[in-house]
């Protein structure tokens, strides 16, 4: 985890996960796909079918962060692509992309309790503190837990 936001200006996609906002840096957002009503994402795409489109595993962030899941229809899958791999995270809601200047950002406290958290700082929104997702750290963390959840970076481009 990096404790200091690595850019002065952060362009980010605010996503809502079980009622809490998180900021995904736009540089890591490859695509967003809405999960339609009646769609069973398990059957959306055959994996490794040889077509030009690649199937990206979807991980429910509600389950990952809070150990609880929500109904799928109406939610969005955000495809995050980093130099260490690609995955898609399911979120409950999206807000319009936004920008935070350096003065609106803070580093996480330097406590061991945060050392392995996949966040690299905070955005000060008027009504909340929003954790900035360290997508590289998140992908690495998921890869360590379940390698099959991550597309290797060479396949994601």
């Amino acid at each position: 985890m990096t404790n200091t936001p690595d850019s002065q200006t952060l362009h980010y996609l605010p996503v809502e996960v079980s009622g809490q906002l998180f900021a995904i840096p736009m540089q890591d957002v490859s695509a967003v796909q809405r999960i339609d009503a009646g769609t069973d994402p398990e059957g959306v795409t055959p994996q490794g079918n040889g077509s030009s489109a690649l199937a990206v595993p979807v991980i429910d962030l509600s389950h990952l962060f809070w150990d609880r899941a929500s109904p799928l229809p109406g939610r969005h899958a955000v495809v995050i692509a980093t130099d260490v791999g690609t995955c898609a995270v399911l979120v409950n809601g999206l807000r319009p992309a936004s920008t935070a200047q350096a003065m609106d950002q803070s580093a996480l406290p330097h406590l061991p309790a945060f050392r392995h958290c996949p966040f690299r700082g905070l955005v000060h929104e008027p009504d909340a503190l929003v954790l900035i997702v360290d997508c590289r750290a998140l992908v690495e963390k998921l890869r360590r837990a379940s390698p099959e959840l991550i597309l290797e970076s060479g396949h994601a481009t």
Partner: protein
Amino acid sequence: MPPDNLSRSTQLFQFRVPGLPDITLALGLPEVLEIARLPEPTPVPFASSFILGLSKWRGNIVTVLDLSSLSGRVTDAPGGALRPDYDPGLRHLVAQVIVDTRRETVAWPVLPGAGSLTVPPRVPQTHIPPGVPAEIVRLAISVSNQTLVLLNLEHLTGGIGNALGCGEVMAIGHVQQGTDKQKKPQP
């Protein structure tokens, strides 16, 4: 911080916390910055279970702790979420601690009745009450027939700060990379 043997008169700040209402805890008075109301903490997934979240105090980020979770008496909410019984109406004790030569600010909710007291020299030491981990205790003393547990903040925020791992995670499906269904939002 107070000397470990309290060989002279010492000023402490005593308090109790939700979940451990029968144990009186204390810090050296210089470690206490303020008793204040804080915005509801923002939970941090994967942080240690004794972290309630992050909040703001006087424009700075503070780490809000759940001292009662250290006793094992209270079941933690999964994934670092705010406990269902978190009371936003309680005030917080804001304290400073040095971690790896950096000054950090931490806070935790306290029950009404917190305040300072002066402890005379050479008060008798006593046993640490059951349920309080010894590694976070600097000293347990008996003052006016009451046990007072002096906390060791450095150990509280450092030594037991092991983060949770990433447990078993499963994909719930797949989306296609590179189809016209997808679009990248514009900033």
